[in-house]
């Protein structure tokens, strides 16, 4: 299986700390890749580097065979993204917000309606985005990522702010995307149980370092072999992080 995203010793260093350290990541085409890690592990920084929002200090990455920064514009054309909290123009309606993105991407008009319907916002398309609830803003952000059916989706905590029904709905939607849109998804979440239901492959990051990369069954095998609990992903994850922190001198 070919890799849609590949990083080679990717590093991001700020003046006083290393956010991402020597990361070698392989995200396979047509899969949902879960990005796991505690706060400050470097998940968002890595995603921002893929979008050119943050410049790597060292290393490189390629997306769909295109190198950054040489093919930045082409890479951005192929990525739909939702980073941290949704970003939008509060003075515009949901539909107008998507219309702006549609025009930048030079897409046909019907894509706006498609995206609104996909995330269940079509009914509220004429409401100002600033008047949306947090869940609706999150859906709008997701619609902005989905518009144009990009081959790669980068979603940073896409279920943030959603109620349980909304989480279930968005999870079902994301789960269906690789088949319906033929896309690859990189998704981060703090909800580990969520990731268990969503992802095909997972990467675990701690203090910018990659601790594990593979399928969920490989993670279970790894956990059994290393003596970690395997009852659920949350316990496995916490044990891996705990041990890494101890190795690093008790740093949490």
């Amino acid at each position: 299986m070919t890799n849609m995203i590949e990083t080679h010793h990717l590093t991001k260093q700020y003046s006083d700390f290393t956010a991402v350290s020597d990361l070698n990541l392989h995200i396979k085409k047509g899969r949902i890749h879960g990005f796991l890690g505690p706060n400050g592990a470097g998940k968002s920084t890595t995603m921002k580097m893929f979008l050119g929002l943050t410049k790597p200090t060292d290393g490189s990455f390629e997306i769909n065979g295109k190198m950054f920064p040489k093919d930045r514009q082409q890479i951005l054309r192929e990525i739909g993204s939702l980073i941290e909290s949704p970003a939008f123009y509060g003075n515009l309606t949901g539909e107008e917000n998507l219309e702006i993105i549609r025009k930048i991407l030079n897409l046909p008009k019907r894509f706006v309606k498609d995206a609104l319907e996909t995330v269940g916002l079509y009914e509220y398309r004429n409401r100002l985005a600033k008047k949306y609830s947090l869940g609706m803003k999150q859906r709008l952000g997701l619609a902005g990522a989905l518009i144009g059916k990009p081959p790669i989706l980068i979603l940073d905590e896409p279920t943030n702010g959603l109620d349980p029904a909304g989480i279930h709905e968005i999870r079902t939607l994301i789960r269906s995307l690789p088949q319906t849109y033929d896309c690859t998804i990189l998704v981060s979440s703090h909800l580990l149980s969520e990731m268990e239901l969503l992802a095909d492959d997972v990467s675990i990051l701690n203090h910018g370092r990659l601790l594990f990369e593979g399928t969920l069954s490989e993670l279970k095998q790894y956990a059994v072999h290393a003596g970690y609990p395997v009852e659920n992903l949350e316990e496995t994850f916490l044990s891996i992080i705990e041990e890494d922190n101890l190795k690093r001198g008790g740093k949490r």
Partner: protein
Amino acid sequence: MNVSLEMKKLKRTGFYPAFLFGAVLAAAIPILQTAFRAEYFTNQLLPGLEILLGANWQMLAMLNVFFLVIGACMMYHIEFADRAIQKMESLPLSAGRVFAAKCFILLGALLFVILIEAVSIAFCTIHWFSAGQNFVQELFQIFGFEWILMVPAVILMMMVASLCRNMWISLGIGVICIFTVTILPHENLILSFFPFSLPFQSLPDAHDSLHVSSYLAASCTETALFGILEALIIRVRRNCA
């Protein structure tokens, strides 16, 4: 340039009504002033246009610079308020072209205000005085000169607005720049090249002091300089992010 896209982003921000209201307010000043002081003005021996410009120019220029500051602040406030700028940065869109489109819109809005002001001055001249032979041409030259001298201030203010996430900071900087103009000595040529001072220079005064070409050269140089500076800022921001 994505001018139409940037114009759409300004919907419901109050940008367009602000400039429309501002233009009407600015146009009302010469008319009201001449109406209330008609006798004083018409008894002077100078040409009508010169009297009107002498009486109203500073106030009109002050309003224009004030609109410029407010317009620039509004244009970038919508980008920062709900983090829309982050979404824009993750799309295949050049930050330089967005900046240029915003400058273009602000210059267009200021051109509209200046045109309304010119119409107001033209009305006063025709109504209370007599228009000379090349009146229309002269009027266009005067207000065209004013518009060209506003370009550096527009780029500088847009640059400030694009750097400040908090609109009140960019607004504060703009207001300080306006107040700086009021304390600078008017007779000093070098100090009048300060970008916010340039719009206060009127063509007849510049003609009298033989500084027309100096002001135009200063405007062009500052425009190029701030344009290059903005391009550098965009590059540095991307590299240091």
